[in-house]
């Protein structure tokens, strides 16, 4: 099977080559347009459009009386645009909210489409229409001219977006600002929706009306994890969409067909969607900045740092009465979590001696810094925020680990202004004892 897939993806078979190229072009174009639709929060309109296309296909068949790809596209496009306009009008003129209007269109038009397609298939010549293939997609039924048409549509759509990249960017980010600058926002919105319609309709033969929206939405959503730049996101989305189209189509052609003769091979739509969803899951987990794994690592690092700093502060405060911060201490004299201690040992903040442990030079400096930040914050809370001294410790406890240097500088400036900024490490404004124990060592 893998040989076959490889043969397919390297385009050695003339027949599947067209199908594959068509699906790839479709994936790229849908993802590119979908990026803007998602950012403009119009993704579900695409879903309504694709569902509304089904009755359009049926009506086109009833009018032409034969299976004609271009006529199908025209019929689907007319109904799709009609559905989008219907949603806009319902939203503008009634109190029905947009999501309800979209649900209404999806249900109503799709129901109509199913009824129409069944009545067509009950006719003697109905089977030739192949309308069932449009529900979940059947890329294999594409012929070379269909694929060429899809390719041309995709190229046109991408060219449109490339030319109007700047206009779409400002429209999606800040529509009011765009209007104030004189951009025809309504027209641009309509154009964007038209492009969504065109892509959706072109994708019906391969992906089907039910799942077409996933090709608009999933690749951009996946791409967003990897980048903070719109241009990169659009290109990446295009690449993901193209890959999903190619792999999904390839899989549907090479997977061994299921036993039941009724299903007539694998529908392409679900396979393309599954590939896209897999790309999304990988992005969600593995993306370097916005991904879940990176987030976990960040949190874990912060937790370890907090634990280390709490240990330093506890040691510092315990040694403070003696004034000798280089003194040796043990687990018994200053209770602490051994995990935090291991981490501090590794970081070189604490040294092991024969009788116990000792703050290293860097450890002493770090401890002084942490305690200073903690106490400055406490002083600030007491003097500025009028918080009772016996409560400040708990409030200051977490803050000192995350205070950015700028805030600390502002804090110092504020205290200096009032003549309350002590040199070096200030004395604790409260008795050191029980309250510190409460939260201090929770890692």
């Amino acid at each position, binding site marked *: 099977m893998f040989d076959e897939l490889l043969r397919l993806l390297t385009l050695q078979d003339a027949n599947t080559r067209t199908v594959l190229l068509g699906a790839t072009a479709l994936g790229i174009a849908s993802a590119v347009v979908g990026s803007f639709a998602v950012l403009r929060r119009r993704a579900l309109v695409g879903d309504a459009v694709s569902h509304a296309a089904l009755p359009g296909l049926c009506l086109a068949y009833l009018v032409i009386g034969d299976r004609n790809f271009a006529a199908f596209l025209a019929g689907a496009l007319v109904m799709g645009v009609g559905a989008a306009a219907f949603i806009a009008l319902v939203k503008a003129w009634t109190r029905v909210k947009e999501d309800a209007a979209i649900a209404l269109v999806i249900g109503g038009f799709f129901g109509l489409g199913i009824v129409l397609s069944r009545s067509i298939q009950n006719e003697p010549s109905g089977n030739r229409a192949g309308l069932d293939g449009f529900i979940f997609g059947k890329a294999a039924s594409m012929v070379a001219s269909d694929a060429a048409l899809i390719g041309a549509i995709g190229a046109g759509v991408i060219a449109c977006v490339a030319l109007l990249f700047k206009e779409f960017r400002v429209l999606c980010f800040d529509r009011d600002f765009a*209007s104030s600058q004189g951009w025809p926002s309504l027209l641009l919105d309509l154009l964007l929706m038209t492009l969504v319609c065109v892509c959706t309709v072109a994708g019906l033969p391969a992906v089907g009306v039910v799942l077409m929206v996933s090709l608009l939405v999933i690749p951009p959503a996946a791409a967003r994890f990897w980048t903070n730049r719109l241009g990169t996101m659009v290109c990446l989305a295009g690449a993901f969409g193209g890959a999903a189209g190619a792999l999904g189509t390839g899989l549907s052609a090479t997977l061994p067909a299921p036993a039941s003769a009724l299903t007539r091979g694998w529908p392409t739509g679900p396979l393309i969607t599954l590939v896209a969803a897999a790309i999304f899951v990988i992005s969600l987990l593995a993306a370097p900045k916005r991904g879940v794994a990176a987030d976990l690592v960040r949190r874990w690092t912060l937790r370890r740092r907090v634990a280390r700093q709490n240990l330093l502060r506890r040691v510092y405060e315990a040694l403070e009465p003696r004034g000798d911060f280089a003194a040796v201490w043990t687990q018994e004299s200053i209770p602490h979590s051994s995990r935090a201690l291991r981490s501090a040992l590794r970081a070189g903040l604490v040294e092991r001696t024969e009788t116990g442990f000792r703050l290293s030079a860097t450890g002493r400096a770090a401890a002084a810094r942490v305690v200073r930040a903690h106490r400055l914050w406490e002083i600030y809370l007491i003097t500025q925020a009028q918080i009772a001294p016996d409560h400040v410790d708990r409030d200051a406890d977490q803050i000192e680990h995350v205070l950015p240097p700028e805030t600390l500088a502002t804090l110092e400036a504020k205290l200096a202004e009032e003549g309350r900024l002590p040199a070096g490490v200030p004395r604790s404004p409260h008795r050191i004892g029980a309250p510190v124990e409460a939260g201090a060592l929770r890692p």
Partner: protein
Amino acid sequence: MSVAVEVHDVTVAYHRKPVLWDIDTSLPERRLIAIVGPNGAGKSTLLKAILGLVPLASGEITVLGRTISQARRLIGYVPQRESVDWDFPVDALDVVLMGRYGKLGWIRRPGRSDRAAAMKCLEQVGMSDFSHRQISQLSGGQQQRVFLARALAQDAQLYFMDEPFAGVDAATETAIVEVLRALQRDGRTVVAVHHDLQSVPEYFDHVVLLNMRLVAAGPVSSTFTSANLQKTYGGRLTLLEEAAEAIGRGGSARR
């Protein structure tokens, strides 16, 4: 003294419910102008009406002596900060560059000179170190300054700002005030929705007091009086509100 904005008998309604009644005032050029009033007074709506972002139920507005669509190149706009999605995939410089889009026209992309101009605007608001920061990683005050820099990049004669001081830190407030004064020195006009009554006399020299209808408008020294403020904030015109509700429900005549 020439006129920046002429508002003549303007009424604005959302879903048929009037939010501004018969506003009639003219805003002078080369002034820092504050629009002041309680929540729901229609301050932002007045700004949007002048900008042509909401349709007028009646009346007319001229900007710098022409219709708003003819004056587009001469105006700059700072929308409310909450009106956009700050997780949008652009950095600070990208946002400021949007200010240049109007002059670029269709299809043309911003070039090197546009980038240089945008950087200058970022510098003017003290944000040049953050030009490549993704906008969601900026603090509220920094985001507001980026918005201001975008307006500066529009190089306009007349600026409209919707609550530029809302929820900003002290440093940002100082930076914004400095920019406003520099704009005025250059002979430009700023119209800002403002919510902090205390700073009105300090920052602005002309004030429009608004509460669904125009209460008073004029130089701060003569108009920003406690009597006028009392009229703006104190006595709520419940009758006006009830009428607006009724029209909104379609109970009354008018359309």
